[in-house]
């Protein structure tokens, strides 16, 4: 059995429910006591923490959204003073306010174990060489998996992202046995290997733990064949903890949620109503043990469904299906989260840019490419090439700074982009068309 914390991961359903209730009650007690936002919210709805006497009572509580995190920027949702916080992560810079999350020492210990569970379930052992090609920095993916892998006792190479040739050199020479990155980057590596005339036999990979963007079975089959690995999916979001929320075991049939630490619900995104197990809807997560920044009923905006099966891996935790979409307009481009509203806000900073734009998402090889078609003011379009070039450069640079990815910007003639009546749809996603 590939279980890192067997006692916890094989609990009976009754024991899980009891533990969840105990932890939910103390989470709410602490949040009410220590976080103004939650106290105000509950008071305004006239709800007392002691009204939560069974798990289902959680539906009485209001949701927490990303906007709430922004409104309480930076530290408003922390439940401990900053001197007890030992790590701060944040969403990448946006034009609006970023979201900030803080971890206590105990949170980091918990996080390590949760990531270790997912890595062990995905095939990692202490004898492995774990090659992490996630970006390090404010993004939780790199550090999250890094500490989980070290905790198992594996040898960790913090390669970080980019420079695929160097990645391949390390993979061959350092004999990386586990690859951690986004699915699209795994495919990109495979493509470069092909170009260099390398095959799966020239590298030493056994397993790939892929995450941070949605992907399907087709991609899995391709990664597995081209890199010679077994590939599993793992899921997490920085607001909740980062990676370590859920992950596939080698059965590759749904992601086990670490439900002793997170309480999962599926809601109807329109009405907010809790849906029965098995139905498709938006995933809502409540942290059960987080000290630094507890989150109550956080709307992930990811669409999935929950189910229990007698998984052959031995883990009794509930599963979520691979997320199949979003309930908001967030785009995931090479693992980076981008909102069209960010693009729009950047455009307002530039005099000659108009608010008329279209975003096209395409595949360039196996990587995502974001193209923006933008109308510029008439006189700039017709006369000044030099100024046009300058605008193009500074826009691209600004987009890169804010979004974290470099879009390809194309200027188009005034009044050539469709004018929308009612809700604009400015995004065309062609990544799944070949």
């Amino acid at each position, binding site marked *: 059995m590939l279980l890192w914390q067997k006692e916890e991961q094989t609990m009976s359903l009754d024991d899980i429910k009891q533990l969840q209730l105990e*932890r939910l009650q103390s989470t709410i007690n602490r949040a009410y006591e220590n976080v103004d936002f939650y106290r105000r919210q509950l008071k305004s709805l006239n709800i007392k923490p002691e009204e939560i006497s069974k798990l289902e009572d959680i539906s009485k509580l209001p949701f927490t959204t990303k906007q709430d995190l922004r409104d309480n920027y930076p530290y408003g949702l922390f439940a*401990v*003073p*900053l001197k007890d916080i030992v790590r701060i992560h944040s969403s990448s810079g946006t034009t609006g306010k970023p979201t900030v999350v803080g971890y206590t020492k105990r949170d980091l210990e918990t996080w390590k174990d949760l990531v270790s569970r997912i890595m062990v379930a995905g095939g990692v052992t202490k004898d492995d060489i774990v090659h992490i090609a996630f970006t390090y920095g404010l993004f939780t993916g790199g550090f999250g998996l890094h500490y989980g892998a070290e905790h198992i006792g594996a040898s960790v190479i913090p390669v970080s992202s980019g420079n695929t040739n160097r990645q391949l050199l390390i993979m061959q020479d350092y004999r990386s046995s586990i690859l951690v990155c986004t699915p699209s980057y795994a495919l990109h590596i495979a493509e470069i290997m092909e170009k260099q005339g390398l095959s799966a036999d020239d590298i030493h990979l056994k397993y790939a733990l892929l995450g941070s963007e949605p992907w399907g079975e087709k991609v899995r089959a391709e990664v597995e064949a081209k890199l010679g690995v077994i590939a599993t999916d793992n899921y997490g979001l920085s607001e909740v903890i980062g990676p370590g929320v859920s992950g596939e075991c080698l059965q590759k049939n749904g992601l086990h949620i670490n439900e002793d630490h997170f309480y999962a619900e599926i809601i109807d995104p329109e009405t907010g109503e809790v849906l029965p197990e098995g139905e498709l809807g938006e995933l809502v997560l409540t942290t059960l043990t987080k000290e630094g920044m507890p989150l109550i009923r956080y709307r992930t905006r990811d669409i999935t469904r929950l189910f229990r099966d007698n998984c052959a891996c031995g883990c009794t935790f509930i599963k979520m299906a691979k997320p199949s979409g979003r309930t908001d307009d967030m785009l995931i481009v090479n693992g980076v989260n981008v909102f069209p509203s960010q693009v729009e806000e950047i455009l307002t900073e530039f005099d000659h840019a108009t608010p008329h734009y279209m975003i096209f998402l395409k595949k360039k090889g196996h990587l995502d490419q974001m193209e923006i078609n933008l109308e510029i003011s008439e006189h700039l379009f017709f006369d000044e090439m030099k100024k046009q070039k300058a605008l193009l450069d500074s826009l691209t640079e600004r987009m890169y700074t804010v979004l974290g990815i470099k879009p390809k910007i194309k200027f188009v003639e005034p009044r050539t982009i469709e004018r929308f009546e009612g809700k604009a749809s400015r995004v065309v996603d062609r990544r799944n068309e070949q």
Partner: protein
Amino acid sequence: MLRVSSLNIYYGAVRALNNISIHVKEKEFVSLIGSNGAGKTSLLNGILSIVPPKSGEIVFQNKTITNIPTKKKVKMGISLVPEGRRVFPNMSVYENLEMGGYQKSTKIKNRQMAFVLELFPILKERNKQLAGMLSGGEQQMLAIGRALMSDPKLLLMDEPSMGLAPLIIKNVYEKLTALKENGLTIFLAEQNASVALKYADRGYVLENGKIVLQGKSNELKDDNEIKRAYLGKEYKEKWER
């Protein structure tokens, strides 16, 4: 072994316990820590029906026992060592122990007596002395011994360290650890968080009748949130250094 969910206890109109949920697994040693007046004794009393809970559920060995009488709960295998020992001062050590097994058959009583006297040699030595003449530490041993006479499966204990010198506290806790290793399940209330977390497997932190924190003892040991549960917040602003 023991599962308490959303237990509420009132004294008149005053709510002493707010939705308390805890569990203790077989052969586990779990502590309930919190400052004076947090509600620790109320929970132990509630578990044994000494104070009847207003709502909530208590399950012991898969049987719901929420409101059954204390005497029956003791018979089922739950035993309490009360706060402040409460030995019978004018009775001998031996008589005190006998009292603890009054519901049991002679056979069980004899077996438990032998077990207790072996575990606490000092009680064997002082067999015939009046309990009132024993030191505080010896009285605590006697109180534990008396609770063990009913052959409990679950031992509840209230403030074992109260009024005892550090060395004696250590002694008492070492005996409890030996009992745990011998297969006994222990749930104790203790104000002295550091000693409880040193010996127990897990802990729950009670503050104003609510559980605010829980976890394995080694996770809780250095947690500043425990200090706050005892002493209140020492900060006004989150960013204060």
